[in-house]
């Protein structure tokens, strides 16, 4: 009697581990499709897209690239809105920065489970490896992910399955347990050896993870945003702007976002109607957004900082155009603020 081909949905980040996990299960004759979640905090693509200096680099979305290498479909799911609750109220807390890794993994596996159930898929695959990550990939937290996501024994981690109790796909014979792996720890050597075995020579090796929330400087800017607003909340535009420019808070009630180069200035242009903004006229220089309620003294200070980051930073006076929220322009002639008068504490 022939059995229907079993179907698995693989969480695909674009990195090597999830690529290998999907490949291992494909090799066992299972139909695999990928799923990739967009939280708004994904490093993938954004900074390269914005910064001019990166625009010569090849731009590829690694999750799409992995799917193409493996000959499988990829479904990219926008979870920006739902993800807010994960970040703002993580049941299991944060990692070293604002990264709620364990809650994030539980949430993503749960969303993959929902997708699997609504598309007639049998089980879920991740590239997790026991002991690889300090928060979400530990021997004691892996059962938590399976349990709290609701996936239970339909969650298979092919790269470390032999270190864990047999899951449904293994017990039912949909996959052969002895053809799965027992990787553990932070060493990447077993993964690299398996990649070589499959003939994968080109794969993403993201330094510092694929999420801005693991980044200390980004987390600091996010916390600052919440403190100043008096509430822990954000919109997509907020978290995009935290990725761009120099952020300075000269006074508690306003901050400046200073474009660092042409690509960032172009990106900030898209937000100019939402913010009072400044740009030097007499010299080339950055577009600067003011986030907050700035009074006349504040605007003058912002103009001096704008002048400081312009090509006229050693000129006695720089003309800075100030544009208000109605789009009305006026000019200020200001001396650039000397670097020594910009305290380190202003930089976020």
């Amino acid at each position, binding site marked *: 009697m022939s059995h229907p081909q079993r179907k698995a949905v693989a969480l695909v980040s674009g990195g090597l581990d999830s690529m290998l996990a999907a490949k291992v299960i494909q090799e066992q004759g299972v139909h695999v499709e990928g799923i990739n979640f*967009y939280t708004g905090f994904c490093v993938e693509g954004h900074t390269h897209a914005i910064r001019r200096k990166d625009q010569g680099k090849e731009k590829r*979305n690694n999750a799409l690239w992995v799917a*193409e290498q493996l000959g499988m479909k990829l479904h*990219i799911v*926008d979870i920006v809105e739902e993800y807010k609750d994960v970040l703002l109220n993580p049941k299991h807390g944060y990692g070293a920065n604002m990264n709620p890794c364990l809650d994030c993994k539980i949430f993503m596996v749960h969303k993959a489970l929902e997708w699997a159930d609504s598309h007639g898929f049998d089980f879920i695959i991740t590239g997790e490896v026991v002991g690889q990550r300090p928060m979400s990939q530990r021997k004691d937290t892996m059962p938590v992910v399976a349990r709290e996501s609701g996936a239970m024994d339909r969650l298979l981690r092919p790269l470390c399955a032999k270190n864990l109790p047999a899951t449904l796909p293994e017990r039912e014979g949909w996959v052969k347990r002895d053809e799965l792996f027992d990787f553990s720890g932070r060493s990447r050597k077993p993964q690299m050896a398996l990649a070589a075995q499959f003939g994968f020579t080109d794969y993403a090796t993201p330094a510092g993870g694929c999420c801005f929330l693991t980044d200390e400087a980004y987390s600091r800017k996010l916390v600052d945003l919440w403190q100043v607003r008096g509430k822990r909340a954000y919109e997509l535009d907020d978290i995009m702007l935290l990725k761009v420019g120099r952020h300075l808070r000269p006074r508690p009630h306003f901050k400046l976002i200073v474009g660092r180069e042409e690509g960032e200035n172009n990106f900030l242009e898209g937000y100019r109607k939402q913010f009072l903004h400044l740009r030097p006229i007499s010299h080339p220089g950055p577009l600067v957004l003011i986030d907050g309620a700035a009074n006349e003294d504040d605007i003058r200070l912002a103009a001096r900082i704008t002048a400081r980051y312009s090509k006229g930073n050693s000129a006695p006076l720089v003309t800075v155009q100030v544009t208000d929220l109605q789009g009305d322009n006026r000019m200020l002639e200001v001396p650039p603020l000397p670097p020594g008068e910009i305290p380190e504490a202003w930089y976020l």
Partner: protein
Amino acid sequence: MSRHQLDARRLLCPLPVIRTQDKVAQLRPGDVLEVVCTDPGALNDIPAWCRINGHQVLETRREEGEVIVEIEVGDEP
């Protein structure tokens, strides 16, 4: 066959791909969708998404800082 347009300007990847994916899901096989983006990454990502999901890229071009990708929706759901 009908023609459709999607404005994905000022969105950074993968959002143009996600918007394309969601729009294509509402279209019928043979329909043509023109996606207009400002993120140059879309020039690689939307065709890659089309290749793995069975849709045909009819044309990609750059026009005045914009990237335009024209897609014919494939037969697969």
